[in-house]
């Protein structure tokens, strides 16, 4: 019911958007002159996200809100685009052979914007503050894992000791969410960190204005001199300021980007994605965000879904080409349980196939007979499944309807339902669902563990092995095994590699990206002389 006004709105918007498109096309034909090759100093980057929780990096873990916060805090290590780790606040680090002990040597001469020195005690305080707040920082604490203690043998050395191996910890500390904040900030309570200018970091920008739900403003820090080694710009940032806006409506934000009122944008409706991909003024990144590919995570406790043959039939029953035809032009077919941009991705396209006939045959053989209402049943159980997801998945609903009709021909009923976060989490915890939406974004093997642990002893053993394996290549081959198992056992029904990346005007230059596909803001410049 709730969806109808939105549908109507989208349809109207589509009309309006095309009208404005025509207008803007007439107005600014061929304005793309030969721009500057060298970075230009100064300017204000206008960035839009659907929402921000606050300027607290640890309270923001979704991609959109994190992008600007990357400028506010630095991390111990920099997770380069290829997945490798580069020095940043830590000049070097060692990991023991089973990933239970991490020792970082800190860079000398780094200060926070309030003048406090970034030393071992400050790093420890920054992590301790998050751990002390427990479930208030649920996501980052789950990334930190089972930490035993943090010790500081000397002012430049921090040691993290774990009760259980956590080979994902290096990736975790590279995230903005676990960026280091000043002792002054660490001393504050959760609610104090959510308002005003209380977040103090060592980043290339400082928080200069906080407009609550409507966004905030970051201003360049002139004495910044500890950019990650891979950054092009080692000194103070090029930009003067970064203005962060929140526009709840994606289509209005897209129109603002076209009009030049925004420089950088996250979250785009499918119609705008298609349009941006063809635009000569706007670039939309076409790499999927690193994490797990999009599709349905199966609840194997549900009758029917407890049978691997049924799950395989459901996976075969999805004609991905037809789904992609309905989706935006930049979405691509999945080729693994990971997205193709995940550093731990291996191409397993041969494990993902579509064959409606075979799917029907499998269900027939397994004894699922088509009932009077067209839905297959066996022993009183029907092949009728409900898919649940949050509001951010609503834009996929037209594509889900394609799967719905494909499954209907197969004799399987698919119902789908967008829920509030509270209800979604409640139903996931209590197991009251058949299918849920897989969409973890993390450039790490852990993107799979967090959705699929506890389903299968063999898979759990692999996850345990991955966590105790600090070596990149070693993790990657184990990750490929895990992905293969998930696909062959059909714990996951792949749909597509979802592209929900940044879109920006061609005057916005983003030279350096992290593995998480978040741009390093110290390098960003605007070609608007």
């Amino acid at each position, binding site marked *: 019911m709730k969806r109808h006004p939105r549908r109507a*709105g989208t349809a109207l918007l589509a009309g309006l958007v095309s009208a404005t498109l025509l207008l803007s096309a007439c107005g600014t034909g061929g304005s793309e002159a030969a721009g500057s090759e060298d970075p230009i100093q100064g300017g204000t980057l206008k960035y839009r996200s659907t929402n921000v929780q606050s300027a607290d990096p640890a309270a923001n873990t979704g991609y959109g809100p994190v992008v600007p916060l990357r400028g506010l805090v630095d991390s111990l290590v920099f997770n380069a685009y290829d997945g490798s780790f580069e020095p940043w606040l830590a000049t070097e680090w060692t990991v023991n052979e089973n990933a239970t002990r991490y020792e970082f040597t800190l860079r000398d001469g780094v200060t926070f914007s309030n003048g406090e020195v970034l030393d071992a005690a400050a790093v420890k305080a920054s992590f301790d503050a998050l751990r002390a707040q427990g479930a208030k920082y649920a996501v980052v604490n789950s990334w930190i894992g089972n930490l035993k203690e943090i010790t500081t043998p000397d002012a430049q050395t921090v040691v993290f000791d774990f009760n259980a191996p956590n080979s994902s910890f290096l990736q975790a500390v590279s995230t903005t969410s676990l960026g280091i904040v000043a002792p002054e900030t660490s001393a504050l309570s959760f609610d104090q960190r959510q308002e005003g200018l209380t977040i103090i970091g060592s980043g290339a920008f400082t928080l200069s204005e906080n407009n609550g739900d409507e966004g905030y403003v970051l201003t360049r820090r002139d004495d910044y001199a500890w950019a990650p080694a891979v950054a092009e710009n080692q000194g103070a940032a090029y930009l003067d300021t970064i203005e962060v806006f929140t526009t709840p409506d994606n289509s209005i934000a897209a129109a603002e980007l076209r009009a030049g009122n925004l420089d950088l944008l996250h979250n785009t409706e499918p119609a705008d994605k298609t349009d941006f991909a063809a635009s000569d003024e706007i670039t939309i990144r076409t790499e999927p965000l690193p994490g797990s590919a999009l599709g349905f995570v199966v609840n194997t406790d549900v009758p029917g879904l407890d049978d691997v043959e049924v799950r395989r039939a459901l996976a075969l029953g999805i004609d991905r080409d037809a789904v992609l035809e309905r989706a935006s032009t930049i979405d691509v077919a999945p080729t693994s349980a990971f997205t193709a941009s995940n550093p731990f991705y291996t191409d397993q396209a041969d494990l993902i196939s579509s064959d409606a006939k075979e799917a029907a045959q499998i269900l027939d053989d397994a004894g699922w007979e088509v009932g009077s209402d067209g839905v297959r049943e066996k022993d009183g159980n029907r092949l009728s499944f409900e898919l649940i997801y949050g509001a951010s998945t609503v834009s996929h609903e037209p594509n889900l309807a394609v799967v719905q009709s494909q499954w209907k021909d197969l004799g399987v009923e698919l119902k789908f339902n967008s829920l509030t976060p509270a209800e979604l*989490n409640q139903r996931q915890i209590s197991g009251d669902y058949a299918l849920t939406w897989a969409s973890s974004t993390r450039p790490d093997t852990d993107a799979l563990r967090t959705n699929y642990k506890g389903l299968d002893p063999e898979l759990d053993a692999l996850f345990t092995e991955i966590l105790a394996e600090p070596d990149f290549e070693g993790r990657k081959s184990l990750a490929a095994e895990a992905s293969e198992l998930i696909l062959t056992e059909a714990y996951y029904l792949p749909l597509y590699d979802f592209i929900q990346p940044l879109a920006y005007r061609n005057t916005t230059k983003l030279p350096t990206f992290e593995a998480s596909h978040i741009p390093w803001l110290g390098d960003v410049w605007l070609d608007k002389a």
Partner: protein
Amino acid sequence: MTTTTDTTEPTPLETPATPRSTVVRDVSRVVAGRLVHAALVIYAAYSASFFLLFVLPGDAVLARIGTTDTVGVADISDLDLDVLRDEVGLSDSLWTQYWNGIAGLFRGDLGSSLVNDRAVTDLLAEALPNTLALAGLSLVLSVPLGFLLALLAVNPRSRLVRSFAALVPSAYVSLPVFWIGILFIYLFSITLGWFPSGGSQSASALVLPVAVLALLGAAQFAQVLISSLRTELGTTYASVTAPAKGASRFYTLWHHCLRNAAFPFLAVFGLRVGQLLGGTVVIEVVFSRTGIGRLMVDSVKAVDLTVVLGLVVVLAIVYVVVNMLVDIGYSLLDPRLRRRASTTQEVTS
């Protein structure tokens, strides 16, 4: 009669005229009655919302941990949320939570958000001025505009002009607000670049949302006024007496009909204030503004009990005050109501 009991002073001969002390007492009784009524309304609104919120699935602690974008299905099931529930008071029994809330209300303490721990009064202080500015301005503009539209639809000699002017308000009212908002943004912000498309950081950002709401208010007022003005124009005093005395059509409308026609307008005015405070959410979302409506919707979605209840209390107070003002407005417009009020009071006293 419960007047003076002192015997030393001789009572004045004109006893029917109410003595000063009686007037004061009457007024204070009316005020006290109003206050008790107001307190009851607020209490009822609070209690009803409190128990309704418990019907919603999930709780605030589940809402604050995020969604599957960042925590996987398996990880969510592993989280130990009971510590957090204890901390924010959600593990207390329903009645304990209810009475704690009521007790806090008496102390003037609305508690803090269950989702981001911020004091509800702080959140209200951020959102309320924005909504008040938006609602207040649009209301102030919509009244003269509504009267103007109504007069245009009734006064001109040309039937064509009248019909057209009468059509405009109905047409505008029937358009969805979000659509008009988006249209205004595309036209005045994105295409013409005259005003910012959203936010509440600058005064110019108020122009578009105020315009949308003021036009809507004016259209609603005009609809009511047009129909009641037409009725008034059909009565004997306006169609026969006034013209016979040589009054022009406009004079009759302005001096005689408008006052009588203003009754339904006042009722709609009161409703409009309520609509504006609770119903600005669509405009707030379209124009990316912080405000009461958006705070309410977000808080209901997140099952943030304390924030929703704080908002309910504030809105209930506003409704009560507005209703009171509308009642006063009635008696100012109609002397008969004043007379009746004083006679009933004399009878009852």
